[in-house]
């Protein structure tokens, strides 16, 4: 009986040991991917050519992230300017004002394995990336 108990405890601990770091790595990587997309979208959209985030760029970004195994429908892009107006497929933000972009993706069950050894999952339900950059757009 004692041996059986020791076996169950060790087995669950071993399972957690083997898989938990992988899930943590996936979490870190997903966050880095989202951040990379935010940086890219901001870099392009704040250029003098656009001043807003074209919907075509967001579609491309969804496809890129889908290539890394994320579900493209669950990605949420929220853009606002520092003036408070919409920036996704909207009138260009003038030079001097910023474009802010929030990108979020549900956490899913990435931390479910921690429940196995009694570590509570974090409260956050979304992986989010954020950035704000000043627009260079000038209306001629």
């Amino acid at each position, binding site marked *: 009986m004692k041996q059986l108990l020791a076996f169950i405890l060790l087995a669950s601990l071993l399972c957690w040991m083997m898989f938990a770091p992988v899930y943590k790595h996936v979490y870190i990587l997903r966050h880095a991917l989202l*951040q990379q997309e935010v940086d890219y979208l901001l870099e392009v959209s704040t250029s003098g050519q656009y001043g807003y985030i074209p919907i075509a760029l967001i579609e491309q970004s969804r496809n890129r992230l889908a290539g890394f195994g994320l579900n493209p429908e669950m990605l949420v892009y929220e853009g606002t300017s520092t003036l408070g107006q919409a920036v996704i497929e909207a009138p260009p933000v003038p030079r001097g004002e910023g474009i802010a972009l929030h990108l979020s993706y549900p956490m899913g069950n990435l931390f479910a394995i921690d429940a196995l050894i009694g570590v509570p999952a974090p409260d956050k339900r979304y992986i989010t990336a954020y950035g704000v950059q*000043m627009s260079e757009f000038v209306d001629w």
Partner: protein
Amino acid sequence: MYKLLMIPLMLVLWLAMYGSGMEQELAMKFYYKAKQAVNRGAHAAALQIDQVSLADGVFQLDVDRAKTEAESYIYRNLNLDQSGNPTEASFVNERVEIVHFEILEAELIYPYPYELEQYSFSTVFHSPAVIIVLNISYPGIFSNGNPVEWNIVGSAQLVPL
């Protein structure tokens, strides 16, 4: 029995290895985020043309506005509040400090070779520029009381319209 003892010992070893690996990943992510913030701050500052001297045909940066905008963009990108203090949303839990803020005047002869020896940074600027150095430290999860600290240099130059 000694065989069983091996498992907990190995567990400790593996956990330490995974921990330090994860710590490195997080530190790099933190660094890139801070670098982006500095770059965006410098970029915003480099967009602040001095309107008065522009009327005389001189492209020059407005020092006060450049500084305000640089601070505001760095703080916003790091999710800090207006005065640079950490908030609940920010991933930094200490005050960040702009240790160097410099604006190159329009009177210099461009291209201007610039060197900041203290932070081992050197480059050539082709127009009035902004140089920012931000001091930021990553506290770490497992390395208690032994944070990683960086002086992150960012610069941007004025691009005339």
